[in-house]
């Protein structure tokens, strides 16, 4: 069901010579979003390439988290939200009436800014998603849990205490547990909303390393405050300002040779 649509990544603001042909996982067309009467996103169009890390950067309140949360429709939970435009993930319109939002969220996993493990054991945290999907067999669950914890580079640290409470883990471990929990349901896309903002540099490095490993299997979209982080881990970067996508392109290109004056001002630290 995923037509191999070849598109030019970074439709706007990219020159033909830097454009790379990639297969798009997420396509956003003319997306606008209002919280009540306040417009938070303005006519955003872009596509997120498959098996790449795409970062959104921008100052606080620019709408980067809102954009991220549109992809798995977490904004539905907020009262008074109105959306216009289209988002297609793997070719399916996420706002289509036939789309079951819980099904969508199983395909689009999410890791939050603040690590939020359930007040349950480590095992039960990871097994939660598969259980929701109807996996009952204890051995199958154990297999999924081990594979997910290995994928999140946490297995070696917790394999002896799977029955312990997840709340006893350190901050970095908790965040990796959240990543393990998200990949346990094998989503197509993994959304990460400032996943390292509450972590120390060592834990941050581990998560960044992990992202580079995970992109072989998942399409990753990350929101970050930290421009160095975006530069280190992402293949593509989008710069948002006041709800508008100012510039989108290959990360190295955007940081070294920004096309837009505002982008340049932001990445050189003139505001933000």
């Amino acid at each position: 069901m995923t037509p191999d649509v070849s598109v030019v990544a970074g439709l706007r603001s990219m020159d033909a010579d830097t454009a790379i042909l990639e297969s798009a996982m997420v396509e956003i067309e003319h997306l606008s979003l209002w919280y009540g009467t306040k417009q938070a996103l303005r006519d955003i169009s872009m596509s997120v390439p498959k098996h790449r890390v795409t970062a959104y950067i921008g100052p606080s309140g620019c709408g980067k988290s809102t954009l991220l949360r549109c992809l798995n429709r977490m904004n539905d939970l907020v009262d008074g939200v109105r959306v216009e435009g289209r988002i297609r993930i793997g070719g399916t319109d996420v706002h289509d009436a036939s789309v079951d939002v819980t099904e969508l969220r199983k395909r689009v996993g999410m890791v939050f800014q603040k690590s939020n493990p359930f007040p349950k054991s480590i095992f039960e945290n990871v097994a939660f998603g598969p259980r929701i999907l109807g996996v009952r067999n204890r051995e199958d669950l154990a297999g999924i849990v081990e594979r997910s914890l290995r994928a999140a580079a946490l297995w070696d640290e917790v394999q002896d205490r799977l029955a312990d409470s997840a709340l006893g883990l350190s901050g970095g471990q908790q965040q990796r547990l959240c990543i393990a929990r998200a990949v346990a349901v094998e989503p197509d896309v993994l959304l990460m909303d400032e996943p390292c903002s509450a972590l120390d540099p060592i834990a941050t490095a581990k998560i960044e390393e992990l992202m580079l490993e995970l992109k072989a299997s998942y399409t990753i979209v990350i929101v970050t405050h930290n421009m160095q982080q975006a530069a280190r881990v992402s293949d593509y970067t989008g710069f948002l300002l006041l709800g508008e996508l100012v510039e989108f392109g290959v990360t190295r290109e955007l940081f070294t040779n920004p096309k837009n004056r505002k982008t340049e001002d932001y990445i050189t630290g003139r505001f933000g």
Partner: protein
Amino acid sequence: MKALWRSGEPFVWLTGGALGIALIMVVGLVGLVLVNALGFFWPSEVVRVTLSDGSALTGQVAERESVPGRPGQYRVKLQVGNRDLVGADFVWADESRITTRERPRDVVAVERTEWGVLIGTIRELREDGRVVASGPAVWEAARPRLAEAAHVRAEIRRVETGEIGTINRLQERIRLAMRRLELRGTTGGAEIDALRAQATALQARYAQQEARLTELRRRQTASLVVVAEGGKEKEQPLSQIVRVSFPNRMGLLAKSGYYAARVWEFVAASPRESNTEGGVFPAIFGTVMMVMIMSVMVTPLGVLAAFYLREYARQGAFVSVVRIAVNNLAGVPSIVFGVFGVGFFIYFVGGTIDRVFFAEALPTPTFGTGGILWASLTLALLTIPVVIVATEEGLAAIPGGAREAALALGATKLETTLRVVLPAVMPSILTGLILAMARAAGEVAPLMITGVVKLAPSLPLDGVWPFVHLERKFMHLGFHIFDVGFQSPNVDAARPMVFTTTLLLLGLVVLMNAFAIVLRNRLRRRYASAAV
């Protein structure tokens, strides 16, 4: 001065002082109860005092106080017993008028099922009016007979309340079945004949038990002759003797044994003498059962209501008003809940149940009168704000991230609520339940009009089908305290019972709370202590 204020010391004193006052009040109250309750069962010695006018009194010293209006002078309250002989259990004697005091070794205290304690000296043992033993040999001869008499008494009681009680209930059931048929217009036929046959069979069973009772009563012939102070003789049938003791002969070990026996009687036996003596077992049973029924009712209801308020309802002015109203419900006088319970549960719900299901028993109400079910429901209503508030606070304390995480994994709202929110809020629910139980166990006013009685003939749980009798009236420790303390015909004898019952109720509440707290802490430990 200013420096002192800036140092913060005065505020520390203030807070410490407030806590100190609160502690002193609580410790004082509990201490008062403890001192009065724990000493009650300890056997006090019997003294014989001679007064200046030549008269003598024999009794146990119950109290000593200064004479009102005459400082420096004291008087003692003697429990002289022998209510059937002299009229009053207790006599005050001014110490200034006491000329001699002695502790006669042979004095005996006989606790009886009726008329309170008998104090005097044993003269002889009789059987069928003939003297079997006299002098020092009496006690040896009486001991086996006393055990036998207690055994027969228990057997009689078993036959009366167990066997004959069951027959009575079955007869009532047959009467109601016939009445039901009559209401339907059936006055003859096979059904009626079958019921009549059953009734005849029951009548035969009754006659059998009646004969057994007569047999048992015929065996109660022995009696003990006791000479009371002033030379009056009392022939006391052994069948009415609960316990015989020689207070002035008892050593520490004997006293401890006596104490243990009295305490056991208190918690395990039924009350005697319009509740001023004997035990409070039916009241303990009623209290515990009522609190349990209340918990079963209030927990699901309160938790569900709190879930709707916090998880589903759109937060706005209306929900705020509802929340304030729920909180204020806790301030409504409990008697108002009682009145509501009478009006709604008993008259409306119970009356309707009676008309629909128990029409044959009318005009005698079945559910249309006070009972343990209605009392429990009334208290559930009274305590529901506590459960709602505690659960809501627990729900508010769960980080929103946990819900978001579950939803982001593709869980539905229901799955999120049941699998993530409910387990996490469990300790708070138990906290609410603990508070509700403590409140309900101590509440009296609404119970007085919804089903508590001074003396319930049978427990709400017994061996007769359907085993749990929710329509029955019951006894309650809180009401027992009120009844014994203020409604008793013999205030002096009853007062210690007030303290012992209070201590017991306190202990019971502590016990039930401890159980819930252990359960809650176990749940908390499972979800670790780290900050969320």
